[in-house]
Structure formats: structure tokens, C-alpha cells
């Protein structure tokens, strides 16, 4: 502190003389801010500072609220308020004045006003709404500097809901003659895209215009938006690849003005942006990647200057090369480049080199081998960041042979790391590795997991203990080894409990109690009574959570045998049978009953039971009789919780604003009383479930039904699906392992220790064609046995010997499960294909960006709930149109199924075609559905077999119709489908198509009364508001506008009262959307509400379009 004072004082004279300095700020010696700052620096204690600032704030407050304060003084006051806020003192009284300053000040004052607003408020602050008008006004200003300021503040913070109000003005700025305005407008739109993508989806074509702007600055700005959009949906922008490549070529070739250079490197930010875009476009796409090879090569060569910025470009280049479809000579150059990073003495570059290596070892594990000595050095680096990054790299190259060493290093790091985020992440990784290579004949696994549990504590991901217990209970292929593993776990836990169990994290205690309950009998010298008393001790601990307690009680239930243990269990069950926690109470009762009835216990909790498949009757059909009896006795039908919640909200809303409604009071009160009975009933049924008799009833349904989260693991283990494929696969692999030949041991070197570490870390990398990477379940093709030669090797090396000589590391259960799942889903989809009448699969997607995800989902499931297939395929005969040339869209009209021909249909649009098939489609609006009609036209000489719907003879048309529904609304609904067919030659082919339907096709009028409307309005939670243009061509603008909307969008106008109107519509038969319109200052203020998210947004978009097109 003191040296600042000193510095300040010495610098003051020169500061005061700065006035004449060009560009330097003019700080007058009498400036109040200057006084304040000087005052603060002279203080010595925090307390004095606080006093001074409070005094200052009081003075400011007095002045800002005085009516005589000029805007000029206000500007100065704002600067002082900002300063106070920066020091951490609140000056909220000045917020409103900041807005006022932005509103009323001259340009210079406005600038400070806007700055203050952007520093004081955040996006959700309510005062921000007051800024909207100011921004609107400034956007329309003729003063360019005001426009710039408005755009800046808009991109800094703007209320999301108000974007539509300024969007047209910002859009307009894209055509502004000044480059700087266009650029700022693009960046403002980028910001909108980030916070509210729905609002700007209709102006994508304008982004393209910005991309083609003659000014490189505007083009650069537009790339931010493109990077974002391409990340979401690379497929849609593949056509732009050559343009991006050309731009990059020009930039690298130095074709841009000098202004864009940064330390003689041409537009580095632009280059990096382009490289990122290219890597997204070229990923898994050979033909697109080929377009960019040349320019990537050039970028690599050009960036040779030794400066941070060129390294930044190189790094991005390398990443791109390793992301896109590989090309060998580029890969070679990139690898060399990584070498430069890794070997650099500069620590920042080394860090980036490690990052790059981490990224590329997934493709090429040998690269890590080249740099092994550097990696070892980095592992011991004093800077934790470097160490952490190195561990990340090692994590990627882990295999069965080096896993112990790598895990050891990670655990070492965990012990010194203090950052929670890092701990959670690293603990997850260690657990993943340990479970992937459980080395079952080894105690290492248990020890590692113990460390994980005690270090990770309660922060770690909950699936870690779950999968550990699963692994333990499922066991491996050898009964004896399973026994050893479990016994070892038991052995390691007993001393922990005897020690200070209070220090162990809850999760670990839960794991311990489960394992002891299940397996402590394996240790013969251990009396159950002792285990019971150890467990009982856990119950008494103050910091045991009730979740842990229920695990402990469960374990005790498994252990108690009566006799000597009876007193402990009796005491415990008595204590908890009156617990307020229902779960604990339940457990205590179980404990009591089962400890008294050994026979029952043996049946309910058989010892050493293998996880077995349980058939879960999720429909709870065995309760049908109970339900029907209850209904017959006059009980109200069950309502699911969300429905109850909705109704509850509704009733709350009603009671809160009784006067705002036109509803009769009696009706609302009546609905409340109606509602009470089902809630009561469901509560009582919940209670009856709680005291379900345990004796004799087979537990067919897991406790999920009423004990959703507190499910004991014993249940979880039993519900697990067995994986029969596992064991034979593993055995097969085990056999093949034994036939492998050993490799030689490394020769001793001067730097023996490091060499040893290296050899244990990088073992298996060189000889393997592919390293088993995280998340992939490829079996390792080769494993090598290392001869155990005690040449005074380090302990880590010896540890490694042990593992490799025991030759294990079977693919983990996780992997197998993953694999099985994959297989299962494949089967499922095959099955679906076989059973479907026509092997044509459709899927609706929400906008283009989600298309793929939705597609795969429906593929694996085999059927999409959103799609109902009508299965109505009409194979029409050749008919009058024998000439292939004449088979045009016009003729397709006649193929429309008879029942649809009376209805209005969209234009029949061609979808796609190949040499044998032509696909066209249209959609027909029925009252209750939207029918998609697909015309499959055989344009070849020969008949085509449709599987199995029959044949489409040469030059004829088959028609399929599908009823579409919408799950989640989007502005356009895209339907993606595949037609698979067989040519007479027997070859199967498929043709993919996609078809876009505007949401409006799904909109149907919704006839409701005003009262019903009122009730619904309150119950809908998703809404949006926007101002629309009014049609002003006659006396009644409101009616005219509403009628226009009614005609275009098929809405139902419920009622028009004065300047307000209410309108209703729905998405097909369900999903209503209500619209409230009010004429306000020449605009139509529209408020939409719906129970469905996104529906209001999408609808407002179509309303806007509809009115614009008039």
C-alpha cells in the first residue's frame, strides 16, 4: 500500500502537467474524482476508506437528486459513482440517473451514461427496460457516434425479451454505408444469436450478405456468427467451404490492408477463426477436407516468425489438420510443428504443446512416445498447471500396462491440488481408469478406489461409487478371484471403521456399509457382531447423513442373525422405527422383522446372490384391482404430479388476482375444492404404499415407485441387466492373451530413474497399432508380457511388472455394457425395419440443427412417437402416363389418395431422385392432422421391389402417406426419411430425403369461449410479447389485422373488445396457443401464451411474416 502512496505522490506533479499531452486525459487538479482518488491513497486503513467512501456517496446522492444538477455535472458524478462501485461499495441510487444521462445528455455525456449503465446493470436488471427507448432513439439518430454507442451497449447487455423491438433497426444497419456501423451491427446480431437464437433465425440470409461484405472487417465480424452456426450444424454450411478456403488463402497471402496486420502477421484473429471453421467443416468429411489441404499447408509454412501470435496460428492449424480427414504429409508436418512447441524453452509454448499432444495422441499415440522424456520432465514441473496438463495427456495414452503408474501420478497430484473443480475432474478420471483396468487379481484396484473415495469425498460424480459396487457384485469370470477381491475390500474397510470413520466422506461410508453387509461373511475370523457394532457406530455419528444411515441399516439387516446380535439390532431398530424420516423408518421396520425371522431373511436377502434380472412391471398392473376397487368406492382418479402442480399453480394464480378476472368467483372456489380430493387420495395411497407388507410378497417392483432417490444399492444391483456376452468374450480374449510372446526389457541408462518411469509410462504405445482410448471399446490387439527382472528398478516399475506378469486387464464391464448396448440398439433398429411395412423411416426434427440427433434417436428406437404411420401404400398401375418424360408433378396430382383429394394440399415438390427413383412430396391439411404424402416414382425400365410392400413396376408411382404430429415446435419442421428398396438384381439401395413444413401447416383454429380462454390463459407458463405492424387501410385497424392473421394462419378470433382482441389456435388437436392483442401507439402489442415452450416464439415469427407479406 505504502509504495502506491509514494508512487502516487511522486507522480502527481507530472500528472498535472499532462494536460498538454496529446491524447492524454485532462485531469484538472481540482477535479473531484482526482481528489477522491488522492484521498483514498492517503488513507491507511480499510475502515477509514469505508468512511470516506460513504461520505462521498452521500454527497453524490444529494447532488444527483437535486433538480439543479446539469447533465455536465451529472457526467462527473457518474464517473465518481463508477469509481465507488469498482471499490466494492454499492451506489444503486445512481443507476436510474445513469439511464437518464444516457437518455438526455449530449454525445459526450451520453457516452458516460451508457458506460455507467453497462457497468452498473446486468441483462436481467429491471431498470434496463427504461433504456430500450433510448437505444431505439439512438439507433435512429443521424449522428453516427450515437448509433455506434447504441450498438455497443446493445451488444454488451440488452433485455432478451426486448430484442424484437430493436431487431429491425439493427438489421437495417447491415446496409449502412459506413463500415464501422455495419461491423458493430453484425456483432450485435451475433450477441442476439447467442442469447436468443430464436429471435434471429429468420435473418440467416443477411448473415450471408455480411460474409460477402466488401469490407474485410465486416466479413471478419460475421465469422463469429458462422462459427457458432457451423458448430451447431456443419452439414448446412458445407457449400461455403471453398469461400472460407479462398478467404484464408488471401489472408495468408497478405492480400489484406496493412491495418489488419498484427506485428507484421496478417490478420491473425481472422486466420484462427477461419481455421476453426474449416476444422468443423472438414471433420469426418473427406471431400470437404480435400478442398482445404493446400491452404493448410501454406498456413503451416507461412507462420515461421518466432512470435506468440504465429504460434497461436500454428497451434490452431495443427488442431485443424488432426481434426479433418487425414492426409499423411500434412500430418507429418503438423507432428514436427508440435515438436517445436513441446521442446520450446518457453513455458507457455510447452503448455500449448502438451495440449496439442493431448489432442493428437487420440489419432497417433506414437507421437507421445517421441516426446516421452519431455513429458516426464513436465510431470515434475513445479508449475501445477503444466503438471495437470501432462496428466491429461497421460490419461489419453493409458493402457493395461501403464495404468498403475499413471494412476499413481494422478493420485499424487490429487493430494496436492486444492481446486475443487480439478479434484472432481481428476477423481472421475482415476475411477474411470481403475474400472477400465480393474486388474482383478490385484489389490491395487481396491486401494486405488479407496483413495478415490476418500479424496473425492462427496464432490465426485455419484456414478463412481455406483459402478464400483456394480463391478464388485457382478464379479468376473472366476469365482475364486471374485471372492479374493471382495475379501480384500472387506479387509481394507474394517481397519478404516475401527479408526476414525468420522473423517470419511459420506459416499465412502455408504460404499463400505454395502460391501460389509454383502461380503463381510467371506472373512471367517470376523464375527458379524463386531461388524454390526462398527456399523452401529456410524449411525451414532453426528455428521452421518440420513442417506448414509439408510445404507447402514440395510447392511445391518443383511448381517443380523439373531442371538448375540439381537441386542444391537433391537436397539437400533427401536431408535429408528420412530424416526421422522420415512425411509429410515422403513429400514428400521425391515430390520426388526427380518432379524426375527431368519427364514424370511434368507429368502428376501439371499446371501451371495448374483445380480439377477428382475422384471419390473412399470405399469403396476398388479395394483389394478386395488385401483378399481378404490374408484368404485368413490375415489377420484389419479393425477400425475405435474398435472397436480399445474392445477395448484392455477388455483394460486386465481386466488392472487381475483379482481383481474372476468370469471365468477364461485367457479374458481368450486374448482379448488374439486381438486383437493385427488391430492388427498394420492397422499393416502402413498402412505399405504409405505407400509406395504413385506412378508411373502415378491418384490417385483423396485422401490423407485415411492423411494425414488434413496434406493439402496442392493436393489440397484439386482435390477441390473445381465450381459451374457461378457464372459465368453472375456475368456476368448484371455486365451489369446496367454499366447502372446514377451518383449525385451529396457536397457539401463544413466538417467535410470527417468528412463524407468518413461518405460513404465509409455509401455505398449509403440508396439500397438491402436491404443484403447477412453470411451472406445476396441479390444487391444496385442499385449505383451514383460519379464520380471529385478535390476534395481524403481518401485513404480515393479508395480508395473506385477500387473503385466499377471497379464490381465480384461476389457472393463463398462466397455462391455457399452458394447452390448450398441448391439442391442442395432438389433432394435433392425427389428423395427423388419416389422415395418415399408422400410421407410421418417423423423421430424426441430429445425435443421437438431435433425441428426433426432434422426439417430428414432433410428435406434425404431419408432418415433412423433410419427404415426398410416401404412397406406397405394401402388398405382402404369395408367395413362407411360411416357417417362411426361411423369411430371402435375400428373402426380391424380395419384393423391382419394380420401385426400378433396382437401387443400401444398404444391407437390420434388424431393430427390436417382437413376431409378424420383421422390416428390406434398402435405395435406386435415382437420385433425397433417398428412405427408410421398410419391415414389419408378423412372427406370425395371420393377423395383419395395420391402415388403410389394413392387413398383416400371414407370409407375407408389404413394405413401404419413400423419405428422409435432413434439416440439419450431418455425419450420423438417422431416427426414429414407426409402430403402431393392432392384430386381437383388441389390438393396436407399434414398434419403428431407422435407420442410412450415409450422403454420399444423396450426388449426381453436374455438373456445371467453371464459375458457381466461382460465387457460392463467395456466400457461410460456409466453412471449412483441409489437407487430398494424394494417392501417381502413377504420378498424385491429379487426383488419386480426382478420388478415385469421386468414393466413387459421386462427380463431375469440372476441374483440374495443382496442383489444383475443385469439386462439392450436397445434393440431392439442397444444393450444392463446394470443392477446392490443392496439398501442400505432402498433399491435401481441402477447402469446402456451403450455409448450417455443410455440409462442415460433408463432410470433409466422405472424410477423404474415403481416409483412401483406
Amino acid at each position, binding site marked *: 500500500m505504502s509504495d502506491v502512496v509514494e508512487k502516487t505522490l511522486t507522480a502527481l506533479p507530472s500528472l498535472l502537467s499532462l494536460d498538454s499531452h496529446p*491524447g492524454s486525459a485532462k485531469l484538472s487538479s481540482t477535479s473531484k474524482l482526482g481528489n477522491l482518488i488522492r484521498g483514498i491513497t492517503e488513507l491507511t486503513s480499510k475502515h477509514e476508506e469505508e468512511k470516506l467512501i460513504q461520505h462521498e456517496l452521500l454527497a453524490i446522492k444529494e447532488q444527483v437528486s437535486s433538480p439543479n444538477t446539469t447533465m455536465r455535472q451529472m457526467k462527473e458524478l457518474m464517473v465518481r459513482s463508477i469509481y465507488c462501485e469498482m471499490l466494492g461499495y454499492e451506489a444503486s441510487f445512481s443507476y436510474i440517473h445513469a439511464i437518464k444521462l444516457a437518455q438526455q445528455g449530449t454525445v459526450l455525456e451520453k457516452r458516460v451514461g451508457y458506460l455507467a449503465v453497462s457497468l452498473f446493470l446486468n441483462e436481467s436488471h429491471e431498470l434496463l427496460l427504461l433504456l430500450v427507448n433510448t437505444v431505439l432513439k439512438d439507433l435512429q439518430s443521424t449522428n453516427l457516434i450515437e448509433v455506434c454507442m447504441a450498438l455497443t451497449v446493445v451488444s454488451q447487455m440488452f433485455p432478451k425479451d426486448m430484442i424484437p423491438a430493436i431487431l429491425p433497426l439493427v438489421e437495417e444497419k447491415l446496409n449502412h454505408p459506413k463500415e464501422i456501423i455495419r461491423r458493430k451491427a453484425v456483432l450485435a446480431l451475433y450477441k442476439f444469436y447467442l442469447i436468443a437464437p430464436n429471435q434471429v433465425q429468420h435473418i440467416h440470409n443477411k448473415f450471408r450478405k455480411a460474409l460477402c461484405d466488401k469490407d474485410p472487417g465486416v466479413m471478419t465480424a460475421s465469422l463469429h456468427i458462422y462459427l457458432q452456426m457451423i458448430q451447431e450444424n456443419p452439414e448446412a454450411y458445407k457449400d461455403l467451404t471453398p469461400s472460407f478456403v479462398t478467404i484464408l488463402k488471401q489472408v495468408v497471402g497478405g492480400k489484406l490492408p496493412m491495418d489488419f496486420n498484427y506485428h507484421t502477421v496478417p490478420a491473425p484473429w481472422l486466420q484462427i477463426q477461419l481455421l476453426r471453421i474449416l476444422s468443423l467443416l472438414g471433420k469426418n468429411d473427406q471431400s470437404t477436407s480435400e478442398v482445404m489441404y493446400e491452404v493448410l499447408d501454406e498456413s503451416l509454412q507461412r507462420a515461421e516468425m518466432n512470435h506468440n501470435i504465429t504460434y497461436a496460428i500454428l497451434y490452431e492449424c495443427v488442431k485443424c489438420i488432426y481434426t479433418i480427414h487425414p492426409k499423411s504429409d500434412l500430418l507429418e508436418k503438423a507432428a514436427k510443428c508440435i515438436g517445436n512447441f513441446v521442446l520450446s524453452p518457453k513455458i507457455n509454448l510447452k503448455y500449448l504443446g502438451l495440449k496439442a499432444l493431448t489432442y493428437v495422441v487420440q489419432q497417433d499415440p506414437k507421437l507421445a512416445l517421441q516426446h516421452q522424456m519431455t513429458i516426464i520432465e513436465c510431470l515434475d514441473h513445479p508449475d501445477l498447471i503444466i503438471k495437470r496438463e501432462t496428466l491429461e495427456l497421460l490419461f489419453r495414452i493409458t493402457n493395461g500396462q501403464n495404468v498403475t503408474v499413471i494412476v499413481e501420478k494422478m493420485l499424487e497430484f490429487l493430494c496436492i491440488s486444492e481446486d475443487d473443480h480439478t479434484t472432481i475432474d481428476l477423481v472421475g478420471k482415476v475411477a474411470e481408469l481403475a474400472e477400465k483396468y480393474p486388474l482383478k487379481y490385484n489389490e491395487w484396484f481396491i486401494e486405488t478406489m479407496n483413495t478415490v473415495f476418500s479424496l473425492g469425498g462427496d464432490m465426485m460424480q455419484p456414478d463412481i461409487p455406483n459402478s464400483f459396487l456394480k463391478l464388485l457384485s457382478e464379479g468376473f469370470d472366476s469365482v475364486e478371484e471374485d471372492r479374493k477381491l471382495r475379501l480384500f475390500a472387506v479387509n481394507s474397510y474394517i481397519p478404516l471403521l475401527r479408526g476414525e470413520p468420522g473423517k470419511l466422506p459420506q459416499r465412502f461410508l455408504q460404499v463400505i456399509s454395502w460391501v460389509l453387509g454383502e461380503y463381510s461373511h467371506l472373512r471367517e475370523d470376523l464375527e458379524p457382531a463386531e461388524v454390526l457394532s462398527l456399523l452401529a457406530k456410524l449411525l451414532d455419528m453426528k455428521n452421518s447423513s440420513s442417506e448414509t444411515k439408510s445404507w447402514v441399516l440395510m447392511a445391518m439387516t443383511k448381517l443380523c442373525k439373531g442371538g448375540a446380535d439381537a441386542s444391537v439390532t433391537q436397539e437400533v431398530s427401536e431408535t429408528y422405527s420412530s424416526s421422522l424420516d420415512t425411509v429410515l423408518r422403513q429400514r428400521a421396520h425391515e430390520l426388526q422383522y427380518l432379524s426375527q425371522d431368519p427364514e424370511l431373511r434368507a429368502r428376501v436377502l439371499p446371501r451371495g446372490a448374483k445380480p439377477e434380472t428382475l422384471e419390473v412391471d412399470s405399469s403396476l398392473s398388479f395394483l389394478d384391482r386395488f385401483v378399481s376397487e378404490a374408484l368404485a368406492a368413490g375415489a377420484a382418479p389419479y393425477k400425475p404430479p405435474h398435472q397436480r402442480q399445474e392445477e395448484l399453480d392455477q388455483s394460486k394464480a386465481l386466488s392472487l388476482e381475483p379482481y383481474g378476472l372476468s370469471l365468477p368467483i364461485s367457479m374458481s372456489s368450486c374448482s379448488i375444492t374439486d381438486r383437493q380430493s385427488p391430492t388427498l387420495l394420492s397422499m393416502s395411497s402413498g402412505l399405504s404404499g409405505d407400509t406395504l407388507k413385506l412378508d411373502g410378497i415378491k418384490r417385483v417392483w423396485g422401490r423407485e415407485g415411492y423411494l425414488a432417490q434413496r434406493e439402496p444399492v442392493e436393489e440397484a444391483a439386482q435390477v441390473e441387466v445381465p450381459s451374457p456376452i461378457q464372459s465368453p468374450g472375456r475368456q476368448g480374449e484371455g486365451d489369446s492373451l496367454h499366447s502372446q510372446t514377451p518383449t525385451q526389457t529396457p536397457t539401463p541408462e544413466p538417467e535410470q530413474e527417468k528412463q524407468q518411469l518413461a518405460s513404465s509410462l509409455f509401455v505398449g504405445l509403440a508396439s500397438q497399432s491402436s491404443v484403447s482410448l477412453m470411451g472406445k471399446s476396441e479390444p487391444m490387439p496385442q499385449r505383451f508380457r514383460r519379464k520380471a527382472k529385478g535390476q534395481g528398478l524403481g518401485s513404480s516399475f515393479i508395480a508395473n511388472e506385477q500387473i503385466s506378469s499377471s497379464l490381465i486387464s480384461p476389457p472393463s464391464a463398462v466397455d462391455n455394457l457399452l458394447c452390448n448396448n450398441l448391439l442391442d440398439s442395432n438389433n432394435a433398429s433392425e427389428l423395427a425395419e423388419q416389422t415395418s411395412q415399408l422400410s421407410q423411416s421418417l423423423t421430424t426434427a426441430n429445425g435443421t440443427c437438431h435433425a441428426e440427433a433426432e434422426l439417430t434417436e428414432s433410428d435406434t428406437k425404431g419408432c418415433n412417437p412423433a410419427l404415426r404411420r398410416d401404412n397406406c401404400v397405394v401402388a398405382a398401375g402404369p395408367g395413362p402416363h407411360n411416357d417417362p418424360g411426361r411423369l411430371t408433378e402435375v400428373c402426380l396430382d391424380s395419384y393423391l389418395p382419394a380420401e385426400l383429394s378433396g382437401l387443400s394440399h401444398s404444391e407437390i415438390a420434388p424431393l430427390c431422385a436417382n437413376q431409378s427413383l424420383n421422390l416428390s412430396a406434398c402435405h395435406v391439411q386435415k382437420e385433425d392432422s397433417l398428412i405427408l404424402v410421398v410419391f415414389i416414382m419408378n423412372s427406370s425400365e425395371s420393377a423395383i421391389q419395395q420391402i415388403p410392400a410389394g413392387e413398383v413396376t416400371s414407370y409407375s408411382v407408389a404413394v405413401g402417406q404419413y400423419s405428422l404430429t409435432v413434439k416440439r415446435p419450431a418455425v419450420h419442421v423438417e422431416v427426414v426419411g429414407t426409402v430403402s428398396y431393392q432392384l430386381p438384381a437383388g441389390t438393396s439401395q436407399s434414398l434419403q430425403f428431407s422435407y420442410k413444413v412450415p409450422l403454420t401447416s399444423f396450426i388449426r383454429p381453436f374455438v373456445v369461449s371467453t371464459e375458457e380462454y381466461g382460465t387457460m390463459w392463467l395456466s400457461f407458463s410460456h409466453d412471449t410479447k412483441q409489437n407487430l405492424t398494424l394494417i392501417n387501410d381502413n377504420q378498424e385497424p385491429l379487426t383488419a389485422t386480426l382478420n388478415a392473421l385469421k386468414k393466413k394462419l387459421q386462427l380463431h378470433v375469440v372476441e374483440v373488445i374495443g382496442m383489444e382482441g383475443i385469439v386462439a389456435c392450436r397445434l393440431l388437436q392439442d397444444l393450444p396457443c392463446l394470443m392477446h392483442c392490443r392496439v398501442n401507439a400505432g402498433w399491435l402489442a401481441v402477447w402469446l401464451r402456451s403450455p409448450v415452450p417455443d410455440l409462442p416464439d415460433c408463432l410470433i415469427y409466422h405472424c410477423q411474416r404474415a403481416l409483412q407479406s401483406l
Partner: protein
Amino acid sequence: MMRFMLLFSRQGKLRLQKWFTSMSEREKKKIIRDMTTMVLARQPRSCNFMQWKDLKIVYKRYASLYFCLGVESQENELLALEIIHRYVELLDKYFGNVCELDIIFNFEKAYFILDEFLMGGEIQETSKQIVNRSIEASDMLQEDDISEWYEVELFG
């Protein structure tokens, strides 16, 4: 994308704060506290990058002032370092041999320069000349100024 930029002194005094995404006051306070303690605790000669939650922190010290930039973790750290450097160059060009005191006493100017340089968490203008020209042009504006003059100065 950048999330925030902080300038603080060796004593941990905040000199400038810029938030590019919406954040609550509590979050801001926590970040400022964490950043100052983390950055000030770094040893000399360690690397300029750090991990904080899911963010990458890139910092650099210029004389008595620390510049600290929080970026999303997929961002290029070296590039972020150069963003800091360019900002310092911009300050230097504007103030002429900038020192911490310039920024203390004229922090609003430092904000204006930052706003011309970065926008919405992305780079807006990298040219020293252009940023400086537009800042100086608006500084010179008088109360009754007309935009024509500004246009000539700023937009050439």
C-alpha cells in the same frame, strides 16, 4: 469467447472490470476475489495460463498492473495473451507511455478504448490506428458538435 477482463494492481486493487456475459453481483465479487488471489500467488516464470472452474484464465503483468482475461476453455490461450498485449498497446498509444496512474485517474477512457477494441466478448477492431482515431475523435467532440466533422475524422 471472452467472459471477463479484469485489471488489478499488485496489491489486489481492482482497476477495471469488464464482463461480457450476464453475471450476478455475487458471481462477479467471487471471480474478482478468486482471480486476485490466484494470480497474485503465482510464482514468476510460471506459465501465464490457469484453469478456473470451466474457464481458462490468461493473465499477464505489465509493471505494477495485472491484466487478467477469462476465456472459454476451447479458446486459444496464446491468442488471448495477445489480446491483452494489444490492449496494452492501445492504452499506451492513447496515453503515451501509459502507467498505472493513467488508468486509475482516467479509468473511463480505458473503458472506452476497450469498448472500441472488444465487443460482445469478441475482437472487434485490431488496428491500433483505427481504434485510436475513433477514441480521439469522440474525445474532441464538443457539446454542440455536428456529426459531419466526426465523420471526416473517424471514417476518413
